[in-house]
C-alpha cells in the first residue's frame, strides 16, 4: 500500500512541471476566455467585464454577420473537406506504387507544408490576379479559353473556392503522409492472396485498401474538418473577408470583434463557438476510434 502511494506521489512529482505549464498557458487562458464569453466587455470603453449570462450566445444567432461567417465557413468546409481527402488519397495510391522516381515526387508533394500559409497567400493573390495573374494567362492566352477566366478573388462565386484551393494546396501533402502510412501498414500477404484469387485493381481498391484505411480516413477527415473550421490565414492575407462579406469566416469575425471593435466578450463567444465545434468533432472521432478498437 505504502509503495503504491509512493509511486503515485512520484508520478505526480514528475508530472508537476508539465501541469504547471499546462495550467498557466492552456487552462488559465481557456477558463478566462470562457468567462469573458459570458460578459459584456469592450476592451477600450468598459472599465471591467460585466457578467451578462447567455446574452452573447443568444446574440450570435440574431447577428447577421455571424450567420454569414458561419455559412461561409460551412461552404468552405464543403469544398475543402472532400477535395482534400480525394486528392490526397489518389496521390497516396500513386506514391505507394513501386514506380521509379516515386521518392522524388513524395518529397515534392511535401514542399507546400514548409511554406507559411501567409506567404502562400501572397503568392496566390498574384496567381489569381485578374489582369496579370498566371492562372488567367494559362486559361485565356495558352489554352484559349477566355470565357472561363475570372477575377478569382473579387467575384462572389469564385472567391471562397479560390481560398479553399489554397488551403488544399497547403494541406494535401500532410494528408498524403497519413494515407501513405496507412497504406504501408496493410500486410503484403493480403494483396498476394487477392492476386491468387484473381482480384483486379478496382476490386483490390474496394475490398482491401479502403476497408484497411478506415483509420486513416477518419484521422484525415477529422483533421481536415478542423482545418476548415479554423480557416483564417489565407483569408486575412488574400481577401480580408471581401469582396463584401463573401469570404468572412468565423475566426476572422472573432478577430474583428476582438481587435477592431474591441468587443472582447463577444469575440470570445465566437471563438468559443468555433472551439466547441472543433471539440465536438474531436470527441466524435475519439468515440469512433474507441468503438473500432472494441
Amino acid at each position, binding site marked *: 500500500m505504502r509503495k503504491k502511494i509512493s509511486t503515485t506521489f512520484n508520478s505526480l512529482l514528475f508530472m508537476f512541471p508539465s501541469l504547471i505549464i499546462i495550467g498557466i498557458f492552456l487552462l488559465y487562458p481557456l477558463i478566462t476566455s470562457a468567462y469573458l464569453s459570458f460578459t459584456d466587455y469592450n476592451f477600450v470603453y468598459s472599465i471591467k467585464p460585466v457578467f451578462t449570462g447567455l446574452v452573447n450566445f443568444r446574440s450570435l444567432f440574431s447577428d447577421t454577420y455571424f450567420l454569414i461567417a458561419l455559412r461561409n465557413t460551412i461552404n468552405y468546409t464543403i469544398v475543402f473537406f472532400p477535395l482534400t481527402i480525394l486528392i490526397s488519397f489518389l496521390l497516396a495510391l500513386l506514391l505507394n506504387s513501386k514506380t521509379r522516381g516515386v521518392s522524388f515526387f513524395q518529397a515534392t508533394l511535401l514542399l507546400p507544408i514548409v511554406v507559411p500559409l501567409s506567404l502562400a497567400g501572397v503568392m496566390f493573390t498574384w496567381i489569381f490576379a485578374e*489582369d496579370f495573374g498566371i492562372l488567367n494567362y494559362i486559361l485565356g492566352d495558352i489554352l484559349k479559353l477566355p470565357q472561363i477566366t475570372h477575377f478569382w478573388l*473579387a467575384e462572389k462565386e469564385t472567391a471562397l473556392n479560390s481560398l479553399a484551393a489554397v488551403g488544399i494546396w497547403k494541406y494535401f501533402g500532410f494528408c498524403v503522409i497519413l494515407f501513405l502510412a496507412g497504406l504501408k501498414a496493410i500486410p503484403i500477404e493480403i494483396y498476394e492472396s487477392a492476386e491468387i484469387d484473381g482480384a483486379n485493381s478496382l476490386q483490390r481498391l474496394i475490398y482491401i485498401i479502403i476497408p484497411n484505411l478506415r483509420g486513416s480516413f477518419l484521422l484525415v477527415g477529422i483533421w481536415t474538418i478542423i482545418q476548415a473550421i479554423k480557416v483564417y490565414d489565407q483569408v486575412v492575407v488574400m481577401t480580408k473577408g*471581401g469582396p463584401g462579406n463573401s469570404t468572412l469566416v468565423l475566426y476572422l469575425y472573432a478577430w474583428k470583434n476582438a*481587435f477592431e471593435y474591441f468587443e472582447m466578450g463577444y469575440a470570445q463567444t465566437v471563438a468559443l463557438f468555433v472551439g466547441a465545434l472543433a471539440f465536438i468533432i474531436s470527441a466524435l472521432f475519439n468515440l469512433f476510434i474507441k468503438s473500432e478498437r472494441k
Partner: protein
Amino acid sequence: MFKRFVVILIIIMLLGIAITSLSYGKELKIIAEAWYFDKYPLEKAAENFIKDHPDVTFEWSKTGDFEVAPLMLAWSRDNYITDIAIVATPAEAVAFQAKGLLVDFEDILKGEYAKDKWLEGFLSDCTINGKVYAIPTDGEIMTLIARKDYASEAGLTDANGNIIPPRTLDDFYNYLKKLTIKDASGKTIRYGMDVNWSREYMILTYFSGIQALRGTIYDENNDLDFSSKEALNLLSFWRRGVEEGLISTSSLVDHSGPRNSMKSGLAAIMWEDHARVVEVGKVVGHDKLEIMPIPDALTNGTISYCMSLMIPKTAQNIELAKAFVLEQFNADWFAHYLMDNWGKLLGLKKPLEARKNELVWKTVSEILENTVSLPHMVDHARLVDIVTTEIQNMLKLEQTPEETLANIRQKSANLDLIK
C-alpha cells in the same frame, strides 16, 4: 579584516554602477510600424538629435500595422515599453485616450509650432476633446492622379499640356470613356480609372467624393451623409463605370491594386491619396503624372487623413520625446525628404508653402484649402466594415445605389458615431 574587505568591495561596486549609469545618459525608446523604417529617415533624425543631445541614445523597435491592442494592454498596466509610438491613425489615438493613456502636446504647440502653423485638417484629426494628443506623421489628401500622356492622346489637355479637370460627374464619365481602351472582344485592356475601394480606403474614398460634390460630409440632420442626391449620383457614377468596364475593381481584393494598375499602365486615372503621385512617378515618370481634383474639389475640398505618433503616459522621457518630435521629426529637411521621396506631408504648413511653385504641391495646397478630416467615431471600425461591404456588393452589381445607401443607413443606425 574580512569585514573591511567586504565593505570596500561593496563601495567599489556601487561606485561602478553609479559611474556606468551616469555614462549611459538617457535612452529614447521609439516603436514604429515596420514600414516607417523603409520610408522615413529615422536613423538620420536620430543622428542629428544626438549631435544636439550627446547624452541620448536610441532604441528602435518595429510593430505590425495598426497593432493597437498590445500597446493598449502594456500602457493600461503602466508598463514602460516606449517613449514614442509611431503607430496607426488618430482614430486609434481616440481609443488610447478613452483610457487616458496619452500625454497631450499642448505645452509645445507655441511660437513656430503654434496651432495656426499646422495644416488644419491634420491637426484637427489629432485633436481629441480640444487637446492635441497626437502629431501627424503622414498627411495625405484623397484626390485623382492622372496620366498626362494618355489624357493628351484623348484630347483632354490644354495648350500647355496640362489636363483640363472634369467639372461634373457627367464630364468625368465622358473622360473615362475617352481614356478606356477595349480590345475587339470588348475586354478592357486599359481602364479609364482605378478607384481604391479597399477596406483601408473605402470610407475615405466615399467621403472625398461627397465633400467634393457637396462641400460637406453631413446631411441636413447633421449625420454622416448617406442620403443626399450627390451620394446617390456618386454611387451611380461608380457602378455605371464598373458595369461598362471603364473603372477597374482591382482594389476589391488588394489595396495596392490601383497603384499597381497605374504603374503598369492598366489605368489612366487613380482615385486615391495624393502621395501616390510620387510613388507611381518613380515607375512611369514624374512628367507623365498630374494631380487632378475630384470634380468641384477645388471649391469644396476633399478628405484628408493622417497617420500619427503618440507619447504614452508611461513614457520615461516625455520632454526628450517631445523635443525629438519637434526638432527632428518636424524639421524642414525631414518634411522635404518625405515630400520628395514619398509625396507625404507632415503637419506643419511651412514645408508645403515653400514648394507652392511646383505644380503638384500647388494643386495639393489649393485642394487643401477646404479639405476636412473625418470625425472621430467610437464605432469607426464598424462603420468602415458596413460601408465597405455595401459598396463592394454594389460594385459586384448585386444591388442598386439606392439599396446600397438604404442598407448603410439601416445598418449604421445604431452605431455610436460621434461628431
